[in-house]
């Protein structure tokens, strides 16, 4: 009797397990744990351990490298400049789409192509524009604006290099923000805007008081995602300038591939991780604040 109930219980529990969603989730969890969790732990360990136990030597080497501080500065500057411009540009593009211009299908196709263009390809595309004998310089000379063109990618001209990287990043990644914002705009019911129109709100008032507040979730997602992705930018700068305009991830690549030092490379990578975790947490906090008080 007791045996019977025991088998029944075990059969029941077995059924519960086989019909449990965790069985379906397990493969993905195992894969992610193996390929994300384990290397993450390994990376942290290798960044802090040397031949004789714990050490900060790798970090000292990293910070002593003049390229590293430059890379840190460049990366942060790039984010501060690119991300706000991208948000505004993408918002403008989404509102233009909303106005249903002629050939909107073609416009939409061309605006979203950069979504599928890799970072490296984007850098090479803009290289054809900004190279010394490239199309921009040809254009300037043909117009008579410049004698022999501007050396945009010259190694001692940090400002123009920065500009080229910013333009290439704007071109490459604005589409991503655009798509997120368009998806958000489409989910806003038309009634709100029409009601505001009936009450005589101007275009700017409707944008500021109706559309933007309703778009907030999409804008938040876009902001966080873009910041994290911008922190990882490197192939654009690599294709345009080589190591003359270092970025953080590019430094990791440099330390691993060319300098053959995985430990310092891990340390540099951890800086990227810390920055992306820090900024996402900061965003989430800043965005929660108004809700908590209001």
């Amino acid at each position, binding site marked *: 009797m007791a045996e019977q109930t025991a088998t029944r219980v075990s059969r029941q529990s077995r059924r519960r397990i086989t019909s449990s969603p*965790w069985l379906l989730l397990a493969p993905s969890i195992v894969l992610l744990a193996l390929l994300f969790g384990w290397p993450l732990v390994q*990376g942290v360990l290798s960044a802090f351990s040397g031949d004789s136990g714990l050490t900060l030597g790798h970090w000292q080497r990293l910070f002593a490298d003049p390229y590293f501080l430059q890379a840190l500065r460049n990366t942060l500057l790039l984010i501060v400049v690119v991300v706000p411009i991208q948000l505004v540009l993408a918002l403008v593009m989404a509102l233009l789409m909303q106005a249903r211009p002629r050939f909107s299908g073609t416009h939409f196709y061309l605006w979203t192509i950069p*979504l599928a263009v890799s970072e490296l390809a984007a850098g090479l595309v803009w*290289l054809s524009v900004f190279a010394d004998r490239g199309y921009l310089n040809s254009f300037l000379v043909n117009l008579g604006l410049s004698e022999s063109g501007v050396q945009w990618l010259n190694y001692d001209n940090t400002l123009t290099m920065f500009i080229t990287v910013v333009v290439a990043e704007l071109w490459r990644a604005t589409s991503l923000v655009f798509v997120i914002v368009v998806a958000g705009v489409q989910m806003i019911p038309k009634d709100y805007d029409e009601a505001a129109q009936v009450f005589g709100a101007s275009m700017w008032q409707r944008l500021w008081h109706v559309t933007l507040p309703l778009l907030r979730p999409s804008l938040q997602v876009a902001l966080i995602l873009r910041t994290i992705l911008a922190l990882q930018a490197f192939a654009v700068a690599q294709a345009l300038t080589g190591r003359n305009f270092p970025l953080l991830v590019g430094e990791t*690549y440099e330390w691993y591939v060319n300098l053959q030092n*995985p430990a310092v490379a*891990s340390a540099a990578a*951890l800086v990227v991780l810390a920055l992306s975790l820090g900024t996402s947490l900061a965003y989430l906090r800043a965005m929660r604040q108004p809700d908590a008080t209001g």
Partner: protein
Amino acid sequence: MTAETASTSRVLPPVDRAPLRRRKWRRAGVQAACVAITLFMALPLVFIALAAFSGRAALNEFPKSLVPSEFAVDTMTSFLAGTGTVPALGNSLLVGCYTVVLSLLFGAPAGYALARHTFRGKDAYQLFVLLVRALPIVVLSVPLATMFLNFGIYDKVVSVTLVHTALAMPTTVLITASIFVSVPTDVEEAARVFGCTKLDAVRRTVLPLALPGLAAASIFTFVLSWNEVLGAAVLTLGHRTLPAQVLASLAESPQAYRFAGGFALVVPALVFIAVMRRYLLNMWGSTLR
């Protein structure tokens, strides 16, 4: 008679055309802005295509005319004939296809579970997946390279595939979940009623209905794998994927090679977006949150 009607119509207040005119101006402004943005997005693509198809002499001439003085395919052919280009192309295709299959095998069941079950820990799982998304690939690629070296699978198609699968996993799970949500449960239940086992019901009813969406998700995954540079560059040495190959030979290659490489990497993007246009907003837009 006619003069009389004319005089009465003259008494009518004049039509205020100002709003109409304003509307017209606004439409023109919208149109102009659209064209300007389109030029910004499309012109660089035109330039790289022109650069990839101009001959040696045309590439070196300065200032360039917009239409190159001679069209030639030798830039492209010398890129394709360069050492490692064709094998790298093959590796890229292989890695892309394997990644699609693996990520669907691992991710689709999870997506199905998220779509059909409510269970404790669902939010935790979703949070876990999102966290993984936020991890920069650069943090993982270096320790993974060491790990793969120890396991003896460094510099293999398998190793790059594994990393790309892990990278694609979060989006695959979320996208497939949204696809399975849109397949009604009734058909599945009907199949069960007619005696299908649970697995059979899914195979015979849900999968065919979800197939278009799954195909779109696969293309998305393929693009992700095709475009990934850093992980592939760190994890391979001899068996590079195409982006990794181009990146590795950037420093010592002439500009013609770089333009040709850039063009070769861009072409699939044009095709992908043309095919995916209908799915774009669902894939990149709403599943991102």
